[in-house]
Structures are given as C-alpha cells and as structure tokens.
C-alpha cells in the first residue's frame, strides 16, 4: 500500500485515490505549435526514480494531490496541492541529464 499524505485529509492508502498521471507536464498555450501539443499529449519522461504525479483523492475530498514518488521503490517523497512547489520536486527534472 502506498501511503499518500493528502493535504486536506492526512495520510491515506492509495486505494482511496485514483492515479491521474504525470504532473511534470504543463499544458501548452492554446496557440502552441503542433509539436508542442504532441509532446504534451503523448510523450512522457517515464523516469525510474522520483516521479511527479497527480493522484485524485477520489474516495475522499476529491483533491488532486501532487505526489513525488519513487517509481522503483514506491516511496513517497513529498505531497502537496497542484500549485505547491514540492520539496525535492527538482529531483525528477534532473532525470534526463542524470541518465536516470
């Protein structure tokens, strides 16, 4: 069981949540190029290690919780709301360069 610390409800089993997906992506401007949109809709970093992702507390408060989770150990490193800058959030960003 992955334990996710919902900012509103506190730590809860992941069974209460619905996995939404990659939270490192930013929706492009409406007039962005087709290539930018394609990247957003279809391409993923898919890191092994820290991964920024959204989980909706669907059986709870319905909040979209931003979670930094290690995809190889399932350890949750940080949780917050979508607007929050999570501690260690940059861990994911570095994965391409680090070859991780």
């Amino acid at each position: 069981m992955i334990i996710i610390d919902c900012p509103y409800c506190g730590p809860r089993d992941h069974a209460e949540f619905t996995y939404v997906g990659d939270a490192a992506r930013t929706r492009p401007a409406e007039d962005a190029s087709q290539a930018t949109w394609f990247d957003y809709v279809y391409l993923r970093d898919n890191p092994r290690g820290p991964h920024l992702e959204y989980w909706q507390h669907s059986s709870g408060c319905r909040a979209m919780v931003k979670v930094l989770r290690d995809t190889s150990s399932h350890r949750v490193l940080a949780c917050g709301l979508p607007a929050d800058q999570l501690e260690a959030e940059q861990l994911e960003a570095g994965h391409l360069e680090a070859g991780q």
Partner: protein
Amino acid sequence: MSAQDRRLPQGGEVDRSTPMRFRFDDRDYQGLAGDTLASALLANDVRLVGRSFKYHRPRGIFSAGPEEPNALVELRTGARIEPNTRATTIELYDGLEAASQHRWPSLRWDVGEVNNLVSDFLPAGFYYKTFMGWPGWMFWEHFIRKAAGMGRGTLDPDPDSYDKMNAHCDVLVIGGGPAGLSAALVAGRSGARVILVEETDGFGGRLRGERETIDDKPARHWVASTLAELDGMGDVTLLRRTTAFGRYDGNVVAALERRADHLAEPPEHISRQRLWTIRARRIVLAAGGIERHIAFADNDRPGVMLAGAARTYLNRFAVQVGKIATVFANNDDGYRTALDLAAGGVEINAIVDPREHGGTWRQKAETAGIDVFAGAVVSRAHGRLGLVGVDVRDASGKNRFLASDLLAVSGGWNPNVHLTCHLGAKPVWDNALATFLPGDTGPDMRVAGSARGLAGLGTCITDGYAQARAALDDLGYSKSALPDVPVTDEPQEEPVQALWQVPGKGMRFVDYQDDVKVSDIALANREGYQSVEHLKRYTTLGMGTDQGKTANVIGLAVLAEERGLPIDKVGTTTFRPPYTPVTFGAFVGRETGLHYQPLRRSAMHDWHVANGATFVNAGHWLRPQYYLRDGESDVKADIDRAITREVTETRGGGGIVDVSTLGKIDLQGPDTAELLNRLYINGWKTLAVGKARYGLMLREDGHVWDDGTTSRLGENHYFMTTTTANAGPVMSHIEYALQVLWPDLDVKAVSVTEHWAAMAIAGPKSREALAAVLDDVDVSNDALPFMGVVECTLAGIPARVFRISFSGELAYEINVAADCGEAAWEHVMRTGAPLGILPYGTEAMGIMRIEKGHVAGPELDGRTTPADLGLGRMVSSKKPFLGAPMLTREGLTDTDRPSLVGLVPVDGKSRPRAGAVLIADPKAVPPVDKLGHVTSSAYLSPNLDHPIALGLLEGGMAREGETVWAAFPLRDEMIEVRVTGPVFLDPDGERMHG
C-alpha cells in the same frame, strides 16, 4: 481403530483426556487434542503418507511445520476438499478426514512409481527435448497434465465465508517465539500499539518443542507469564493461527487468520478465514529459522526427518517417531536432538557428525553414552516404504550399516528471511554461519532472534528486547527499563561445518516435493542453466508448494560446488509472497456473488419491478430493458412484442422512461460558461438562462469522449448531464481541469447524479401529460420551447423540467430530488394514465434513437471524431477547446475515415446485426478489405416496418444510395444493405420541435 503405539504415557502439550477420531486413507485412527494430523499419524506409527511429484517416490513426514515438502494430503471432502494441505500444520479435530494424494490406485501400490524405475530417462527438463514430433504436443499434454498436478481440487461453490480486517499499529511483531514474545513485551510495556501474530495455535515458537529452561523453570512458564502480561495490556492484540504472509509497500503486512480450520466446519456466523491488512509503523520480524537437510543417496525414505522435527514430535506431542534413531548433523543442535530423544526413551545408535572436533555438546552426548562418529557421514538410507537402516561412511571411506527406523538429519539452520525479501531486498550470504542472512530491510523492518541467524535462547530473547527498543526509539517512545535478561542453560556451541551433499551413487534429493536431485542441478549447470533463476526454472527447484523452504539453499550451494565458485558469487535466493499459500476466498472476503461489485438502482426501481420490468446492467446500474405484461414471458416473441409496443405507443401517444442513470454535474460560478467553452467543442457563451444545449466533449487527443446536454439554470448556475458510462470520469476530468489546468477559473463543480431522479416523457401527448402533471405551469411551445428549461413543482415536489429529446419526439425530462423520485413517477403515471402514457425501457429507447440517427455508446467508441459522427459542423473555429490541437492531425482528418451512415436491408427484411463488418464484395476470400462496420441495429423499426441500422463506413454519406454487404461470418450471414442518411424518421425534427 489402532492404538497410539508411539505415544508416550506422559509429557507434551497434548490433552490425553480428549481423544479425537480421524480417518486417513479409509482407515480410522485416534489422536489427541493438541495433535497435528502429522503428529497423530506418527503416534499411530503411520510412516508412509505421500508420493513425490515426479517419480512417485514413497514419502513420510519430514518436518513439523509449514516447510513440509512431503506430507501433503487432501483434507476434508466434497465442496470443502483442500488438496496439498500440509499434515504438519493441520490441527487435529474430531472426525477429521484426510486422504493421500497423487497416487493410483493406492498409496502403497502406486502405478506412477514406474517413473521411479525409468527416472534416468526423465532428468530435469527432459520434456523440453521431447514430445515435438508426431502426434504433437497436444496429444502428450493430455496425459502429462493428468500425471502432473498434485491433489484433486474442486470448483464446487465454497460453503464457507471469509472476512477482512484492517488494522494499524506502532509495532507489528511477526512470530510468537522467544524473540517475538520478548519484542512484544518491550513494545507493549512502552505503551505502543502492538500486534503480535503467531502462525500456530499457541505461543512459544520452538520452545513448544524443547526441554529448555528459563530462570530454572521449564520455558513454558516464561511463555505463560509473558503472555499473561501481554494479554493484560489494552493496546496489544494477540493473533493466533495467523500467518503474516506478505510484506507490501507502505510497511503493510498481509496476514491470514485461520479462524475455523482447526474445526470440522466453521461455527455458524463465523468466517472460515480472515485477511488482515496491517499498517505498521515498525515491524519486528521474529520468524525463527528453518532447518535444512543434507543430500545423500535415498535421503527421502520415510523415516528420514529433520532433527528438530523429531525433537518437536517428542517434546510437544509426546510421540517417539522412531525406536532406534541415528542422528546425522553437522552442527551442535543435532546433539540436542539426540539427547532429548534419548531422554524420551529412543535408542540412539549413533550421532554421525562430519566434523572431526566437538565441544561441550559432544561431551554431553558421550557422557550420556551415545556413540559419536566424528568425521563421518550418512551415505545412504535403506527401506522403500520405511527406513530400516543407514550406511555410515567414516573418514577413511569405509561404510558400515546401522539398523535404525529414524534418521534425524540436521544440515544447519536457515533464518526464515522470507518476508525480508518481498520488497526486493536480497538475502546476504554469511560464510561463518553457512547461511543467508536478511538483506537490507530498511528502517521500517527489524529482524530479531534466529531469523537473523542468532543462536541460543537467551540471545534471542535479549535480541527481541533490543530490536523492539530500537523500533520504539525510532517512533519516539520514551526509554523504559528492559526486562531482566533471563537465565538460560546453554552450553557453548561449536560452529557448523557446511555440508550440502554426500557424494555417492543414487538419487540424492535436494528438493523433495518436486524430485530435484543433485544430478539435476549438475545437468542444468552442464547445459548452461547456471543463473540461479535458470536453475530454479529448469529443474523446478523451489517451485513446489513449500517454495523450497528446506531446499533452496542446498540447491544453490550444490550449484556453487558444481561451478567451483563461492556461494555468494553464484547468486542469492529470494522468496516471493505469500510465505505460505493463501486461499482465494480470503483475498475476496465478502465481495462474492451479487456483492462482487456495487449495484445501483434508481429511485423508481421498486415501481419498475412491480410493473414487469426486465433489467439490464448499465455499468453498475440496473435499468429497465422492457416491460412485460400479464401473460407475457421472457421469450423472444413476447420480448419483441413488448419492445414494439413501447416504441409504437410512445411515438403514437406517450411514453415515460427512467433516465436517472445519466451523469449529472452541478456547475456554479462566474466562469462556468468559459469552462464549458473549453470542455465542449461547441460554443457556450450565448446560452441564455433557462435554455439547454447539446454538447460534445473530446479527449485531449481529439477523439470524441462524451456527449450530453448542459442547461443554464441561472446567471452563474449550470447543470450538465453526461452519459451513464462516463459520469465518473467526466466529473474527475472537470475537477482536474479546475484544480490543475485552469485554477484561475472561478467555478465549483459537484456531482449530483444520485441527487436527482430523472424521467423523460416523450411522444405527441407528452405536452398534455406534462401540463396535467405539473402544478400550474405554462408548458405551451412559447412558454417552454424546444431546449427550454423551467423550475417548477409537481404535486408539490420541486422539479426541473427540460424540453430535450433523445427519442426525437416532443419530449420533456423531469428531474426531482431522488427521495421524491418514486412519488413523482407514480404521480406521472397516475395523471398520465388517462392519456395512455406507458413506461418504456432501454430497448425501445435504443430503437427510437437509431431511428433518429442519434449517436450513443457504440458510435462513441473512443476512436471517432466529431466529423466521423456527422457532427463536424459543431466544431467551433472561434475558440480553443480541449482536444482541438490534436484534432487536426492527418490521421483524424483523412477523408477516407469511416463516418456515420444509415443502413437498410435491400430485401427489406434481413436484419444487419451490430458488429457486422461492411465489405464491398460478398464473394471475396480472406483477407477481405473492410469498409467499416454496423454500430447499432434495430431488428425492426415499427415506424418504418423494416430493420434499420447505423454504421461507420468509409466514404460515409458520399456513398448514399449505394449498396454494400454487411458480413457476419460468425453466423454465416451476408446481407446486402443500402446506404442512407442516418436519420430515418422525421429528418426535419418537426415532432420534437412541435
């Protein structure tokens, strides 16, 4: 009924005042309360209990615990039969019935033993090298499957029930032996919330099978007093007969509590088993150790037993498993066995110890008059159906025969590291202890006692204290005094001397259950299956129901010897959950039958039931499919008549349908129109208060996702409906949009699907009916025009009325609070009855929407675009919306994409079925070019008097008037159909606008 010849008159934990009858292979026996099936069989001198998997070798009881590879039986009978059940873990109950398995016609005379005679032809992996030619694998497989398998299972419904428990604790202690009890004691005294799980029916662990003392009293006194103290603590939960079988992420441990497996059947209202999901802040694993054996020739004879098990049977069950015993051990624990057995009246003819030098234990044995053969090994066991003696080879290589009916073997002890492996940690080889120790378990799990390779009772108890204390320190519990260090009598032990196999001819078994021999491992190595995982998979080492608890380490060591490498260079062995097999039923709990998934019923459900509805699953919902009248039954002719009636009478007069299942979302806030504008492909800024509009939603990838109407109830108040299937996903999608994509939008969204009961009245008389139903509301075309919305009351019930139409008729949808749904429906039926308003179900609704060419689930299949569905004109070019950027990709704009058409049979009567594939040439041979497919079909349009269908066809409406073929080769049907427009009825919409 045979006497318990091997039972001692006193001692042990068994209750001599409570005899229990049991049956094994059609013979009746007697055992005692406190027995396991294994101890009871041994007490009755039953030595042959099973047959091995591959060679059908006769086998006896080998262990006294869950590691048992041999003594597997079919327990119980009928629908409760449990194959492959370990006799060593079944608690005896009065009337127990068990049978040996995997033999024919009997355990003693098993035809399958012929495999043993030709075993040289059947080495590891022989089946990969054969059975490839005539008559083919499928032929041979039939026989191989029958020969394989083990016990006979059943797929009859299970008469028992199962439950689930969820628990939280500070410290979970796994294992109720000395280390576990002491850890629980320290944790409990600190005030922490503690759960202690113990696999067997009582606490004490190995102490139950020992004669040791603590503080100069029998160890059971220490166990009892510790248990009494734990029992008195409020925050300590003691779980007996509970196996912690798996460790999962988040420091969750799953455990199986067997509540009634020690009884003939579960008492009324008690579940058979319970699955515990335990979320622990810290885990102390005190799972003890498992003894291993040594591979020598014919080491599988019934009567060859793990030394610790022989001791357990004597001390705990008061059973002498032999009269004359030889002990073969490479460690000092074997001496304890020899001394205990001797004290229990068993004659020990020798301790065979490959170590030249001994210490205190050897002196004790010699003082007791036991011969010790130092530097010697047992090289062979004799006796096909029961041990008659062993060959002992001394240091000079000379063999001598010892007559014995018990060989107690100890090749050393393996810490029970199973649960340390489940999250990926690999055990680490320790050369001094000649065993694998737990790998890095992380800070959340600590391992205590012999589970981490410690020896000695006092050491294990104090380690339990220490590990618990360390866990408590992590959690911030204040330090308290540790319990006193107990006084134990433990002679100094000399180190173990690794001995995995004794060279020699004959079958030397490593893994008993699957008949994996030393020679199989050598063969695998020669053939290149050298990775430990290849070895396991090629030879099936450790793949049996015991997961190789006694075999894996020996197998690995033999491989290392074959390769000439140290063990840690060859690899490591790991374990997958569960620790011991777990029933399906326990994982499922109460989610069986109708309770497998939730069942959703509309507020009007009871009315539908009372009025002849047949229901259909729509996701979790039950919806009326059609209504049968008195005299009609669920046969095709009656069903067709009912559906035709519902369509005809709705189109001719009026009908009412329950549409409560549609998703409903209440949207409020000043930016709602902007949100809708971004979610839907069409524009929303111009929608006036009191009006509804049809909308189409795409996924971000440009494909159609959902449709529905949204109404503007107030300046900043909108009400959205979705399809039944997408109610949840669309709601989540809006929440994602508002919380993540566009947090600047000031909109609040709430799902109100369950809040509103909804019904649609359709047909030419619907206005008249509506007027009668509502309380003083002007429902004229001017006051409530097409797509108009009004809030009003109905028999005093607040209601919303939407003039929208799915059927293509003049139609109104009425929403009332769900609590009032049934009353409102009944009011409508009562009031509408004089006008002939009748209920209709999803079938009639489906026909009417096909007649109108309205798209639904089969057309919204996740692969279509708005243009494919003939809704391309809805796509706004004036605003951005979700899915727009990806909608312009070439693959989504190709002109040859299949698009929506109507289809009618050329012969006017054949029915093109949904799922038929549209092709040009009915005579073409595969592979045939496909032009599209039939998405939805009505067996008959009562209004047109012939079958109709919708389809997606390459070229779409450009083919209007052409004919193509609806091919349904699955039924050998080929129907010529003419392409028409998708709207079969009232193309100008005069009915619904009227």
